[in-house]
C-alpha cells in the first residue's frame, strides 16, 4: 500500500506536467486547427535555451526568465507567424506535416548546437523528502504537482473568469460571430499561441530535472500529451487536464504492476478504446462530424 501512494504521487506529478502540455495542445487545436506534432520538442527546447543562458554565466533565476521569454518569442510568436499563418488556409493536414518537419528540425538543431548527450538540469524544487501523514514523499513530486496545479488553476481562471478569457473562448468557438461582436480574433489567437509557449516552457522547467535534458526526450512527451488530450477530450481544456493526470497515473501504475516492457502500451490501448467507444473523449463535447 505504501508503495501505491508513492506511485500515485509520482504519477500525478508527471501527469500534471502532461496536463500542461496537453492543455496547450488543445488550445492550439481549438483556436486555429493546428495539430502540433512538434509539441514534445516544444517542451524539450526551453530547457536547452535555459542551459545555454546559464553557460554564459547567468544565474538560474535569470536563465529561467530569459528562457521563458525566448520560448514566447520563438515557440509562440515565431511559430505562429512563420509556420501557422502561411499554412492555415490550406487545411489541417499540410500544417500537421509541416509541424512534423519542424519537430525534426528542432531535434537536429539541439543535437548540433548543444549536445547529443543528456545534460543534467537544476531543479527549482529542492531535493529531499517531506512527511505527510507519517509517510515520506519526495519533495520534488509534491513541488512539481503544486506548481502545475497552480498553473492549471490560473489558466482556468483566466479562461473562465476574465473578459480576455471569454473573448478567447468566443474566438475559438465561432470566429465569425466573435468578430462581429467586436472580439479582436487575431489578437486572441496570438494570445493562445503565447499561452501555449508559456505552458511548454513551464513544463520544460518542471520535467527536465526528472528526465534530464536530451534532444530526443520530446518524442515520449509529445506522445503522452497527444494521448492525454484525446483521452480527456480534444476540445476541452478541463478534458486535457483530466487526461494528463489520468495518463500520468496509468503510466506509473502500469510500469509497476503490468510490465516495464509493455508500460508504454497501456496508455495506447486506453487511447484506442477511448477513440472507438467515446471519440469525443471522457469530458469532451461531441464534435459535428465533418464529411
Amino acid at each position, binding site marked *: 500500500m505504501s508503495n501505491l501512494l508513492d506511485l500515485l504521487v509520482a504519477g500525478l506529478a508527471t501527469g500534471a506536467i502532461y496536463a500542461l502540455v496537453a492543455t496547450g495542445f488543445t488550445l492550439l487545436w481549438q483556436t486555429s486547427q493546428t495539430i502540433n506534432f512538434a509539441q514534445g520538442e516544444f517542451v524539450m527546447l526551453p530547457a536547452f535555451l535555459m542551459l545555454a543562458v546559464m553557460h554564459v554565466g547567468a544565474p538560474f533565476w535569470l536563465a529561467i526568465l530569459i528562457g521563458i521569454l525566448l520560448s514566447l518569442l520563438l515557440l509562440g510568436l515565431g511559430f505562429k507567424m512563420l509556420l501557422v499563418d*502561411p499554412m492555415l488556409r490550406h487545411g489541417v493536414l499540410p*500544417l*500537421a506535416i509541416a509541424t512534423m*518537419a519542424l519537430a525534426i*528540425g528542432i531535434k*537536429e538543431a539541439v543535437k548540433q548546437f548543444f549536445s547529443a548527450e543528456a545534460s543534467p538540469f537544476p531543479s527549482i524544487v529542492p531535493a529531499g523528502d517531506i512527511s505527510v501523514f507519517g509517510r515520506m514523499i519526495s519533495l520534488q513530486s509534491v513541488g512539481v504537482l503544486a506548481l502545475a496545479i497552480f498553473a492549471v488553476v490560473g489558466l482556468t481562471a483566466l479562461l473562465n473568469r476574465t473578459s480576455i478569457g471569454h473573448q478567447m473562448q468566443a474566438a475559438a468557438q465561432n470566429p465569425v460571430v466573435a468578430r462581429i461582436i467586436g472580439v479582436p480574433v487575431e489578437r486572441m489567437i496570438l494570445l493562445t499561441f503565447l499561452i501555449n509557449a508559456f505552458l511548454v516552457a513551464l513544463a520544460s522547467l518542471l520535467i527536465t530535472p526528472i528526465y534530464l535534458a536530451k534532444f530526443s526526450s520530446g518524442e515520449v512527451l509529445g506522445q503522452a500529451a497527444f*494521448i492525454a488530450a484525446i483521452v480527456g477530450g480534444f476540445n476541452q481544456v478541463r478534458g486535457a487536464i483530466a487526461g494528463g493526470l489520468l495518463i500520468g497515473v496509468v503510466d506509473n501504475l502500469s510500469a509497476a504492476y503490468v510490465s516495464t516492457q*509493455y508500460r508504454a502500451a497501456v496508455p495506447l490501448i486506453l*487511447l*484506442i478504446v477511448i477513440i472507438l467507444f467515446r471519440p469525443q473523449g471522457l469530458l469532451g463535447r461531441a464534435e459535428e462530424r465533418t464529411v
Partner: protein
Amino acid sequence: MTGLPKLLRIGLGMVVIAALIIVPMNFNRYGLFILSQWAVMTIAAMGLNLTLGYAGQVSLAQGAFVGIGAYAAAIMTTQGMPLVAALGVAVVLCFAIGWILGYPALRVQHHYLAFVTLAFSTLAFLVFRNEDWLTKGIYGISNIPRPHIFGIATNRPLPFYYVCLGSLAIVSVMVWWLIRSPWGRAFVALRENPIRALSLGIDTRRYTLMAFAIGSALGGVAGALYAPLTQYIDPVPFNLSLSLDLLMMVIVGGAGFFFGPFLGAMIAVLLPEWLRFTEGYYLMLYAVAVILLLIYSPTGILGILDRYLSERRTKVASALRAVAKSRLETAP
C-alpha cells in the same frame, strides 16, 4: 501530368526507366544501397498514397506494416524458406491487419483516425522489441539471405537493386491499373464525398477497409524487400518516425498524384544524402526544405506542376470565352 502531350509523356517515362537501369551500373555499393532504398520506400509510400491520397484516410501506421513485412521476410528466409513465400505471407498478413485497422476508420475520421493508427504503430514497435522468441528483440535478426531469382544469385548490390527496381515496376503497374479501375474511382469518391458515394450505391464500408488493406499490403511488400536489402533488422527503423517519414513523403511528393510517392521518396531518401556535405546540418536543412516547400505548395511538388498546368488551361479557356463573348455581343 495530364496536360503534357501523350507522346512526350511516354518518351519521358522511357528515358527515366532507361536511366534507372543504366546509370547505376557503375555506382558503388553505397549508391546502389541508397537507390534500392528509394525503390523500397516508394513502394511503401505508394501504398500510403492509396489510403491517404486516393481514399482520403489518414494513416500513421505505414511504418509498422513495413516492419511487419520485414520481420515476416527475415524470420522466414533465415529459416530457409524462399523470399517469394515470405512475400506472400507478408502481403496476406499486412492485408488482414490493415483490414482490421480499417474498422476504426468506419467510426472516426481525420485526426482521430491518425491517432488510432499512431497508437497501433507504437504498439507494433513494442511487439517487435519485446517478443524476443519471435523477433530476437533488440538484438535483431542478422544474416538475412538475398533471394535467387531464376537461378541468379542477387547477393551483390547491383542484382539486388534490379530486384527492387523490378518489384517497384510491377507494383507501379498494378497500382496504375487499380486507380483506373472502378475500385480506384470508388476510392476517390470516398475521399471527395462519402455521403454522395454511399447514395450512389458504393459500399463505402467495404471500400474504406479495402483502401486500408491494400495500402497496408504494399507496406508489407516494401518490408519484405527491406529485410534482404539491409540483411539485418532490429526494431529501431520501424518506430513511429518511419510512419511519419512515409506520410511526409506522400504529402511532399503530392498526395493523390500517381507519381507523388516517387518524388516524395526521392526527396526523403536522396536529399539528405546530397546534403551530407553539410555534415551535422543535413537533417536540419531537410526539415527546413520540407517546411518551405509545404508553405509554398501544400499539395506537394506535383501540386506546383498541376497548378501551373491548370492555370494555363484556365487562361486558354478564358481566352476562348472572351472570343466567344465578343462574337455573341457583336451578333445581331
